[in-house]
């Protein structure tokens, strides 16, 4: 199968891209890395009448620390982000998630913002964004708006962007330096494939060593990445221990309504969620305790 015919335009600036989107929006897709989009176009699951290529908009290829956010622009490659000093220092969970995405050659072309906008319910970067409570900056002729991760993923491969909006960048608050740690774990059938279950955990301890805050985000267990809000609330004030992790993991798994498909049944995904949550909490706490002594 080959892609259906389309018209192609290469944007040379953000303003240019927004003009094109305003004109063509409903029947246009943004082409950045193309590692997800072109695959869908090859099988004709996606048949946009127009492609707006933003690879030439060099302003969007950036990673910066702005105030207390790491900002990653729309044409920044996944491999660049994964190995970037600002990312590995300030949002190590995002770098950890990034290592699991596909294969090296895919990551050298695919973009961070593209993966997030693609909103695959099983993908790693949306899970990490949700755990880190990042936001997407969306721009159009009408202006700009910030969309929180929790509001951005609205269904399977569905995001909250309007037809004429371009995701310009993601902004991710830096992780706490002290008494805080994180972990990203996943299970997939083969290395480099999408996970059957992915868990991102961030644990922050108070001075007594109890949980001040816990965040647990899961992927591939629903129609979009989810937070284990109930378990997170239960965790506050608890003492980290094997029993605590087991209880929180059990609570997390119970609250899920996993999908069932060829790659994994609902009971299997629920089981993986429980096991991975327990392991992720264990690892995140070890990471937090290490940072307490740093």
């Amino acid at each position, binding site marked *: 199968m*080959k892609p259906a015919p389309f*018209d192609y335009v290469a944007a040379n600036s953000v303003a240019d891209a927004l003009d094109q989107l305003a004109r063509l929006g409903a029947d246009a897709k943004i082409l950045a890395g193309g590692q997800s989009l072109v695959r869908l176009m090859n099988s004709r699951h996606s048949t946009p009448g127009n492609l707006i290529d933003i690879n030439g908009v060099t302003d969007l290829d950036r990673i910066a620390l702005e105030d207390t956010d790491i900002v990653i622009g729309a044409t920044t490659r996944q491999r660049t982000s994964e190995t970037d000093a600002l990312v590995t220092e300030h949002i190590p969970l995002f770098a950890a998630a990034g290592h699991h995405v596909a294969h090296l050659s895919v990551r050298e072309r695919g973009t961070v913002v593209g993966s997030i906008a693609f909103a695959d319910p099983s993908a790693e970067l949306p899970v990490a964004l949700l755990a880190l409570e990042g936001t997407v900056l969306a721009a159009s002729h009408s202006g700009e708006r910030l969309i929180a991760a929790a509001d951005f993923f609205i269904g399977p491969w569905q995001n909250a962007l309007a037809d004429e909006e371009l995701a310009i960048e993601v902004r991710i608050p830096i992780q706490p330096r002290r008494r805080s740690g994180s972990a990203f774990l996943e299970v997939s059938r083969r290395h480099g494939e999408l996970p059957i279950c992915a868990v991102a955990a961030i644990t922050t301890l108070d001075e007594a060593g109890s949980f001040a805050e816990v965040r647990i985000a899961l992927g591939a267990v629903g129609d979009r990445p989810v937070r284990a809000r109930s378990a997170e609330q239960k965790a506050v004030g608890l003492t980290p221990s094997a029993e605590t992790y087991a209880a929180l993991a059990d609570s997390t798994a119970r609250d899920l309504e996993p999908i069932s498909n060829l790659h994994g049944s609902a009971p299997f995904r629920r089981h993986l969620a429980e096991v991975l949550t327990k392991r992720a909490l264990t690892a995140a706490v070890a990471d937090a305790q290490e940072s307490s002594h740093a």
Partner: protein
Amino acid sequence: MPNKVRITLMVNGIERDTLVEPRTLLIDYLRDDLGLTGTHAGCEQGVCGACTVLVDDRATRSCLLFAVQLVGRSVRTVESLAANDGSLHPIQRAFNAKHGLQCGFCTPGMLMAATDLISRIPLPTEDDVRERMSGNLCRCTGYQNIIASVIEAGRLVSEASASAGALVKEEVPA
């Protein structure tokens, strides 16, 4: 009426100037327009890596790129490896010596991925090869000989560089 676009790009050291539809994938441009059939279309979904070529010296899936995106860029295919007189590139000699192919379908992708890998890690370990070439699938060999071939390829390339200077030649007849 197909909406053709004029593009100019370098392929195996030769400047190419042509008209293509936007929807023409790089792999189809290489195979059908240029007759460079060494690059193989295994899945057209970006999973198997048989279509791997070098774009600006980086291993890239040519089934996930449109030719129109390559304006002003440089592409190298497996045809660029052997010398003009037909003598094999050290990477090809290594795959021969270590039996790194059976049917050969995945091999061009493996060779180009290995070329990129060795340019960045001159003497890769088994772990390096497994990690960095995980995006290239093989249905025949079970991978062991491919890994051995890439490790040997690194050795041969380093040896040749040490004795003779740059191996990569710039121009290949289409």
